[in-house]
């Protein structure tokens, strides 16, 4: 079956090559177009005939980075997302380990509850949180955003880390017990390093999730704690003349961190997979 599949999908066949080529162009074109446009001046972008040859300019990027609003938003994003990831990992990974390895009363219910947090539409989470943070005087603070994003990162990390720990064979932990190690040493010295590649994936995934988060941030911030996606979206509201070049540049800035992280993880996974051969 697998072999048949492989023959069917022989990448050397011209037809398959052509189909693949078009798929790649289809999916990469918007990204490439955005990158190109981010280096164009506005006049070059809005011409009816697309210009492929133009003198590139860094002006859009300089403009974007020189805006205090953007600088603040970038800092906000880094601090909020970084903190939420750190807290979510520190709390979520041990929680996932406990759920995966110990028979806890109500463990299945906990697992379902964690997952159910992700079923709710973001608005359903944002409105009650908005009321709570307003009451507590935390509305539009980084603290409230960290708390909210931690809910997202922690539930995602728990959910994705449980299978990672379940894949650590019980007998390997038992070998550790026989070698005389206690439960904490077994977690830190055996299970955590073995599950690390999968856990890394879980953290990256939740990073992308909160870095790109828009709706909740829109409802919980007004001025001080705005994150990058909110501020970037505001460029569209600058007036009738949409500043396409600036918009494209900010999109690129916004997309780079997740792309870099995804690049890192794919390299990392490749190494791990090769190492295990």
């Amino acid at each position, binding site marked *: 079956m697998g072999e048949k599949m492989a023959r069917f999908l022989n990448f050397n066949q011209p037809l398959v090559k052509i189909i693949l080529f078009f798929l790649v162009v289809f999916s990469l074109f918007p990204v490439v177009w955005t990158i190109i446009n981010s280096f164009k001046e506005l006049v070059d972008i809005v011409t009816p005939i697309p210009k492929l040859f133009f003198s590139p300019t860094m002006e859009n990027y300089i403009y974007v980075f020189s805006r205090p609003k953007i600088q603040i938003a970038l800092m906000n994003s880094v601090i909020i997302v970084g903190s939420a990831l750190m807290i979510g990992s520190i709390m979520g990974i041990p929680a996932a380990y406990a759920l995966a390895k110990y028979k806890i009363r109500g463990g299945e219910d906990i697992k379902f509850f964690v997952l159910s947090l992700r079923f709710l539409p973001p608005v359903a989470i944002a409105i009650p949180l908005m009321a709570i943070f307003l009451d507590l005087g935390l509305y539009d603070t980084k603290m409230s955003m960290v708390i909210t994003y931690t809910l997202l990162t922690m539930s995602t990390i728990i959910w994705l880390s449980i299978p990672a720990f379940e894949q650590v*064979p019980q*007998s*390997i932990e*038992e*070998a*550790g*017990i*026989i*070698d*005389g*190690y206690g439960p904490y*040493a077994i977690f830190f010295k*055996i299970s955590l*390093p*073995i599950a*690390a590649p999968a856990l890394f994936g879980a953290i990256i995934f939740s990073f992308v999730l909160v870095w790109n988060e828009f709706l909740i941030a829109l409802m919980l911030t007004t001025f001080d704690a705005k994150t990058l996606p909110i501020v970037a979206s505001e460029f569209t509201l600058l007036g009738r003349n949409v500043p396409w070049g600036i918009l494209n540049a900010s999109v690129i800035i916004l997309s780079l961190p997740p792309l870099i992280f995804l690049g890192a993880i794919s390299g990392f996974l490749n190494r791990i997979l090769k*190492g*295990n*051969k």
Partner: protein
Amino acid sequence: MAKIICSGIAKSYGNVEVVRDFNLDIEDKEFVVFLGPSGSGKSTILRMIAGLEEISGGVLKIGEKDVTHLPPKDRGVAMVFQNYALYPHMNVYDNIAFGLKRLKMPAAEIKQKVDNVVEMLGLQAFLKQKPSQLSGGQQQRVAIGRAMIKTPEVFLFDEPLSNLDAKLRHALRKEIHQLHKRIDTTTVYVTHDQSEAMALADRIVLLESGNIEQVGSPTEIFNYPRTRFVADFIGSPSMNFIEGQIVKTDNGYRFKGADFDMALDESLYDDLQQGAVTLGIRPVHMQLSDDDAINGEVIDLEYLGNENSLTIKLGGQEIVAVLPEGISPKVGAKISLTAPQDKLHLFVNDVNLYRVGA
């Protein structure tokens, strides 16, 4: 000095009793094999000795010390697992040294000890490699090294060869045997493979649904199986069982089968009485005969090299006889077989009437 004493050991999960009232004394330096089909409780008992499974009842002593409720590290045990259970993120050296590092032993001393073990097992070339780069046999050797390095009082093996192919299994079995002779440590070894048990054990403990069926040396268990279960489980091919009657005649007792009968030597059995009985004969003990014979028709012949395995139709059932290479009757031929008197087993209510030592 590490004798293991199990008195009245029990294990239950909720209301399900897996093992109950398990009693066994394992002598110092003895090699004991727990043998049984899956679900016989052999691994559970081993894991209870290791301390990986809580003991629900009874007392376990290792070397005069009550260890019933002690954690594994305080029991002086080392264990080798079926799937090797090596730490995949550590290289061979670290795998073996991992247990010593906990003891805050100086690095030089650890290295010295690891070198000794590694040399004994022929693993010098692999020290820097990860377990995933090794073959199954090499991995299990590393696991044995990891167990040896702690100079435990008791060695526990949980089906260590089951994941290996036949040839490697044979080779490693021999190594374990020689290793035991060299380091002379009390060993408990679990397997479902009777040939492994026969080859390695000083004593075999044959288990079935959590109960001991028989304890004895390999020869005792092979020659004097106490129950029909033991007789059936040990030996390959398995013992033939033929239903029939014991009848008393003027010339002494005879076994009467469906269409044959043969004399029985009364002195070999306890309490021979008339009535229903099952006659057991091992295929390897069958031989050609002219009289007093089991008469059947050959329906299959397998050539095994130095011998032939014959399947013979006898009344409504089939029996197997292993005969020397020279004897190779055609399929369909009639054949007459018998067995030496002292190789006949008689089972009444599944218990062997054989008088041990007779």
